[in-house]
């Protein structure tokens, strides 16, 4: 056996039959992303992805705020698994990176401390009369999208290339800390050079740019973001990343974690307002996309159904580069008809007419 090199580590990902669990943050800030993912998996690729309406939060955010004891979160996780078992699935598909980390951690603890698994089974039974099997595969949605990148790319009319100049778009990735830093074997490429996003971007013809603070945390910090007066922590750490990537003039920031996706978008606005600085050349900010959003765009889904208008850093410049057609009027119009327009930040440019 040759010593393990994470760099070329490939994760086993089943091709079909998934039990899907949602992400609090993703569905709050990017509702279109999860919807688009399911649509792609089910309708474009014809996969069987099941969702049980009774599944809840994994309580991971509260757990990392140290508001939920280990035993409690373990049992909540167990409950989710019992729903999976009940529905007859053994492949768990997780939308949230924090949840993904939590699931990995619980499975790992149960593996190393079987007595805890027993306690959990018991606790779950006592409290809900439920029982559960362990999943055979634990897959993050970005894993699946990466795994299916070829079929997706084959179906995609678009590529990550500047349509006018044929220049490959420069992509920087930010992989959520809990995706592979906790359990390198849980993600593609391990902790140091996870390939889950870079591989995706390259498949779509983008050029990956390595930047000094690539592995630095976006700065969520759980309690620190959730407490307004502590948000400086979150902001400052994202700032470290922006300053580090600025020199490489990226066209796009690609993420797989809902939290990171939101922060890297919103903090650009906040920093612009606070310091008057943006990290692109035109003062429009660097567009941020998650893996589902990217896949959906490449497949030609409508940006506004995808909910890209809910980003604070506007996507039009990127869409124009790629050459994705969109109807500006549709952007802010609702099912009910035309709606009011969002306010304009004082620094960050958001309207380009």
């Amino acid at each position, binding site marked *: 056996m040759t010593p393990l090199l994470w760099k070329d580590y490939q994760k086993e990902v089943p091709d079909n039959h998934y039990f899907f669990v949602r992400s609090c943050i*993703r*569905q*709050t800030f990017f*509702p279109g992303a*999860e*919807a688009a993912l399911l649509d792609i998996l089910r309708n474009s690729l014809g996969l069987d992805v099941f969702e049980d*309406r*009774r599944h*809840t*939060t994994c*309580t*991971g*955010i*509260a757990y990392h*705020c*140290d*508001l*939920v*004891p*280990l*035993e409690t979160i*373990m*049992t909540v996780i167990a*409950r989710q698994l019992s729903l999976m078992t009940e529905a007859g699935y053994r492949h768990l598909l997780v939308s949230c990176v924090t949840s993904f980390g939590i699931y990995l951690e619980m499975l790992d*603890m149960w593996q190393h401390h079987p007595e*805890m698994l027993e306690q959990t089974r018991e*606790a779950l039974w*006592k*409290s*809900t009369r439920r029982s559960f099997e362990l999943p055979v595969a634990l897959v993050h949605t970005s894993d699946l999208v990466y795994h299916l990148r070829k079929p997706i790319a084959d179906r995609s009319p678009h590529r990550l290339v500047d349509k006018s100049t044929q220049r490959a778009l420069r992509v920087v990735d930010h992989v959520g*800390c809990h995706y592979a*830093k*906790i359990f390198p074997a849980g993600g593609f490429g391990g*902790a*140091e050079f996870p390939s889950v996003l870079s591989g995706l971007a390259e498949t779509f013809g983008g050029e990956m740019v390595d930047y000094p603070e690539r*592995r*630095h*945390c976006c*700065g*969520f*910090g*759980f*309690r620190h973001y*959730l*407490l307004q007066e502590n948000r*400086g922590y979150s902001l400052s*750490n994202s700032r470290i990343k922006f300053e580090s990537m600025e020199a490489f003039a990226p066209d796009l920031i690609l993420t797989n974690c809902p939290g990171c996706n939101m922060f890297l978008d919103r903090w650009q606005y906040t920093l612009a307002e606070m310091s008057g600085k943006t990290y692109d050349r035109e003062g429009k900010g660097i567009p941020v996309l998650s893996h589902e959003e990217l896949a959906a765009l490449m497949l030609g889904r409508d940006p506004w*159904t*995808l*909910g890209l*208008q*809910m980003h*604070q850093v506007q996507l039009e410049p990127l869409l124009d580069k790629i050459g994705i057609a969109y109807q500006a009027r549709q952007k802010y119009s*609702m099912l009910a008809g035309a709606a*009011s327009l*969002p*306010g*304009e*930040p004082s620094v960050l440019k*958001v309207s380009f007419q």
Partner: protein
Amino acid sequence: MASLLSQLKDDIRFSEGLSACMNCGICTAVCPAAAYFDYDPRRICQLVQTGDEQDLENLLKGEEIWMCGQCLSCKARCPRGNVPGYLIQALRKLSQQSGHFIHSREGRKQIRLKRRIGHSILETGYCVHPQMVEPETHPEQGPVWVWALEQGADLYRRCGSNYYGEGEGGLRKMAPGVLDELEAIFEETGGLRFWEAIERGAEELKLNTEP
């Protein structure tokens, strides 16, 4: 009353988090909290490693343990397989259980967090949901968020979300019985008892602040 150290040792995250630290500082080097606060995870490992009760108590009463942002970058790098991030979890739990948390500014904030995030779990089944993110307290969410909340269901439904509605999908209203199950789990596994400990701390604070 068992010693703080022995209580720590009861927490599996302690034994998982700290076997023997060789003080190499790799954790601090990557730590985003160390980049922002005057904070040094290595130092905390050292302190706990010495196992001095007084030091431990000061630690539990102090601000330091609340600086960690739980990104767990430290886990990936430690050459000894330690996880300062886990150690912090164990310390924070003990600090809240033992009531020491009310002695630190950061510690006291746990009360606010518990009432906000904690309660949201049992009331909605979500840690966070759109209506929790009020623009007043979240100016960083920007004008787009104000707009999104104004649109509410219209916008979310357009993006395929079930915005607080019955049935399937994102942000759906939890099915009947689900929240009871969650509560039962919290009851059974000590989640609620833990919250009571936090509230006891809040009580104590009130007493202390009364003239």
